[in-house]
């Protein structure tokens, strides 16, 4: 049973445009949502998080939006840069369980 779903395995975006990565979840007990970025042969690196009590968190070019009623979150990257090409994992935490559950990832290609 996939509790965190990333339905797009890959996404291609022109350099300079906005990249929007989407994620859906099923568990209402998640208290934090996180995005990780992964380059080949490296471990995932933490990018940005949002508490379940908020609907938006911004950090430079990265903004995460949370729609609790739809159980949906998205990561916006603007403007997209070549170094943003990577696999992005959506993740969520149940505080009581103290572990993070990851989606399958979306591979983002930034086109020159």
């Amino acid at each position, binding site marked *: 049973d996939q509790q965190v779903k*990333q339905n797009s395995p890959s996404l291609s975006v022109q350099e300079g445009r906005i990249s929007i990565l989407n994620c859906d979840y099923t568990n209402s007990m998640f*208290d*934090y949502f*996180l995005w*990780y970025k992964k380059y080949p*042969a*490296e*471990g*995932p*690196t*933490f990018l940005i*998080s949002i*508490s379940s009590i908020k609907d938006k968190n911004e950090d430079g070019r990265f903004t995460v939006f949370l729609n609790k009623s739809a159980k949906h979150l998205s990561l916006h990257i603007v403007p997209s840069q070549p170094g943003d090409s990577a696999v992005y*994992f959506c*993740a969520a*935490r149940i*505080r009581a*369980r*103290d*572990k*993070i*559950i*990851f*989606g*399958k*990832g979306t591979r983002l290609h930034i086109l020159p």
Partner: protein
Amino acid sequence: GAGVSQSPSNKVTEKGKDVELRCDPISGHTALYWYRQRLGQGLEFLIYFQGNSAPDKSGLPSDRFSAERTGGSVSTLTIQRTQQEDSAVYLCASSSGDRGGHYGYTFGSGTRLTVV
């Protein structure tokens, strides 16, 4: 250390052999996690340590898998009688502060295990 260190970075083993994977977390991080990523899949939770105890082992796929942590620091993941389906990248992560909420985990670069 400055980051999470995993060894070996690559391991090729014959089916049926035992393997040990090591993780050295960031100094002072009390929580340690093991995940694995099989080809084309997401990160699959295996086990979580708080100090030396493992409150959540629910992700270990079978009794061939075990893990321990000593001194609240280094952890070893052991896979006995390896099978081809065990081939994956095994990732270790550690965290402190808000237990992974605000700050997420810090991951190591992983051990790529290939069972032939």
